[in-house]
């Protein structure tokens, strides 16, 4: 089982725990159970966990199936840098989040599942796994005539190419700097 990325399973487990916390929390709050405020906490914790865990991390090898619409949450989760990248932090976070929900029977299932997810994240962290965001690959649209080199901007007579200031690749044709023509090498008119 050497190549298993535990974090992937921990992610599924944590997402499931989030949903269970939300459900248990709604039941406890709606039914006004004893100590229902733990249920309200559970809903909030569950929503937070679902949002945090929704964007799937990138696999180390091979392609990763993104969850539908995850790129928005990926952007947010990415912002927290090492806090969300590091799985030790996630393991501890989930462990702490699960504690208050353990006081209520309606949400204790969520606690148990979250603790298990936390343990799997701990295992993942020990094995050096990290959360890497799945980046959108920039769409390589073949531009019509994009391979045609930049047409010359200097009128003749033109100094040799090495001396000419090269415009950057892919720049729009119209973006060439305006202004008076300055020849980099003094040009003498040889017409006699």
């Amino acid at each position, binding site marked *: *089982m*050497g*190549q*298993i*990325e535990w974090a*992937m*399973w921990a992610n*599924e*487990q944590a997402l*499931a725990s989030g949903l*269970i916390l939300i*459900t*248990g929390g709604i*039941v*406890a709050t709606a*039914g006004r*159970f*004893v100590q229902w405020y733990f249920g309200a906490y559970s809903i909030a914790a569950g929503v937070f966990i679902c949002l945090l865990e929704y964007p*799937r991390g990138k*696999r180390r090898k*091979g392609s990763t*199936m993104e969850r539908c619409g995850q790129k928005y949450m990926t952007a947010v989760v990415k912002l927290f840098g090492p806090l969300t990248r590091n799985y030790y932090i996630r393991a501890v976070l989930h462990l702490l989040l699960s504690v208050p929900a353990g*006081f*209520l*029977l*309606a949400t*204790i*299932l969520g606690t*148990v*599942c979250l603790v*298990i997810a936390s343990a799997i994240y701990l295992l993942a962290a020990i094995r050096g796994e990290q959360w890497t965001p799945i980046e959108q690959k920039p769409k390589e649209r073949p531009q019509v005539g994009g391979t045609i080199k930049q047409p010359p901007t200097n009128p003749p007579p033109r100094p040799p190419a090495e001396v000419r200031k090269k415009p950057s690749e892919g720049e729009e044709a119209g973006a060439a700097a305006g202004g008076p023509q300055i020849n980099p090498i003094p040009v003498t008119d040889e017409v006699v």
Partner: protein
Amino acid sequence: ETGPREAPHFHMTMGNWLVNHWLLVLILVVWLGLNVFLFIYTFLTYEMSDKYYYTREILGTALAFARASALCLNCNSMLILIPVCRNLLSFLRGTCSFCSHTLRKPLDHNLTFHKLVAYMICIFTAIHIIAHLFNFEHYSRSQQAMDGSLASVLSTLSHPEKAGNSWLNPIQSPNTTVMYVAFTSIAGLTGVLITTVLILMVTSAMEFIRRNYFELFWYTHHLFIIYIICLGLHGLGGIVRAQTEESMSENHPHNCSESYQKWGTHESKCKHPHFEGHPPASWKWILAPIALYIFERILRFYRSKQKVVITKVVMHPSKVLELQMRKRGFSMEVGQYIFVNCPSISLLEWHPFTLTSAPEEDFFSIHVRAAGDWTENFIRAFEQQHSPMPRIEVDGPFGTVSEDVFQYEVAVLVGAGIGVTPFASILKSIWYKFQRADHKLKTQKIYFYWICRETGAFAWFNHLLNSLEQEMEELGKVGFLNYRLFLTGWDSNIAGHAAFNFDKATDILTGLKQKTFFGRPMWDNEFSAVATAHPKSVVGVFLCGPQTLAKSLRKCCHRYSSLDPRKVQFYFNKENF
């Protein structure tokens, strides 16, 4: 003037699908109907029946929900073990002749059924737990209520009657919390354990995990043993209580419920009611499937102990290992798969591989690609050429049938990526049948489309196409097999190279006579070409590949099938190899 895409044509093809899949639909409908029926029947029993009158007084409708979902859970837990008894199912397929053709399709969708039943179990588990949470809460409240209501009177019933064990409310004192009861009762403990185990099984069985980390799924799924044990024990303790028959004669709810304050006094005829719990019922549902499954595992073990003789080992480019084997009593059909176990690598793991040999050959073969821990170790074990070859065990063959592929005059075969593997078996078999002039083979023409990113790991398949091409030339049957290879992972280098070598007779990438195409096939063009070439034929389209491709092909089949049933008809078959 209605065209092929409009309503009448749609009905006709819906009808076609139904004809092919009627048994599947029937099984689904019966299963759903059974669930609905059991749920409603149990719900009404607990909601209407007199012996639960007093129980309902405390619990309300949540009682009925909990019990109805419990019964459905029992039923589905019984059903879930059956689709995974693959040896039993194979046996069923093999025996009766009615079974063999009609039952084939449903039996090959056994895993789909297993998943459906699993989803149903999850849904009913959720209903069951939520209902019982309300039940516990209501019991707790009525135990603590000081308002002298019927509910609180019923809850105090334990004290004088303790000896007779005829209490109703499992929460016996106002200081007992629901948490305490949950974790000190058998039902509560097994309940938490069974649900935790169910969740673990489901999260590790998610498609993403299953496909990429198969061993994790395989091992975690064996937690089902804990599930079964807990399910059997769950009902012990009889927390759900009904009024006894005897008690009903002394205290019938219709007569006595109003006068509850006077129970047991000499003012009223009504005595205190007595209650009893049910004996556990789950074991009755799951005993037979457990026995079947145990028998199945024993059978697998026995079959796997049959000696497998490895006759040839071939290392193909890109680390693909071909194993040719023989086993006594082994007989296969095209497109089937086997499970392979290699004790020296892992005692417990069985991995599925599609058979790449044809039934006509005197051996069976698999091509193993390095796609994970186990496969890499497996390939390495054979690469090292130690004098004793590692022993392997084989279970199977199982699975799907593409026997239909021989029934069509014209066959369009599409293999995408690794989906090309079963077609090795199919193409070889077609070729053997053709050579022997097998009358079962109705195929006159094959169009084979192979779509992959790059041919590296399938160089062996390339080889196969090459040799088929040569043999057909020798027999003078050049037009029998038309194949097109589509490379979707091309870049400008490859394309440039191909353009440069346009005039050469053989393709520079594959060495085949037919040229490689780049990018994805334009199915509209392909289908209309086939329709034009075979205006009066029935064309079978077979795909082994991703769902998106299935959608496009299905659409094209609809679009290019003629309205006139005597003209060209395309039938789409998606096989889950």
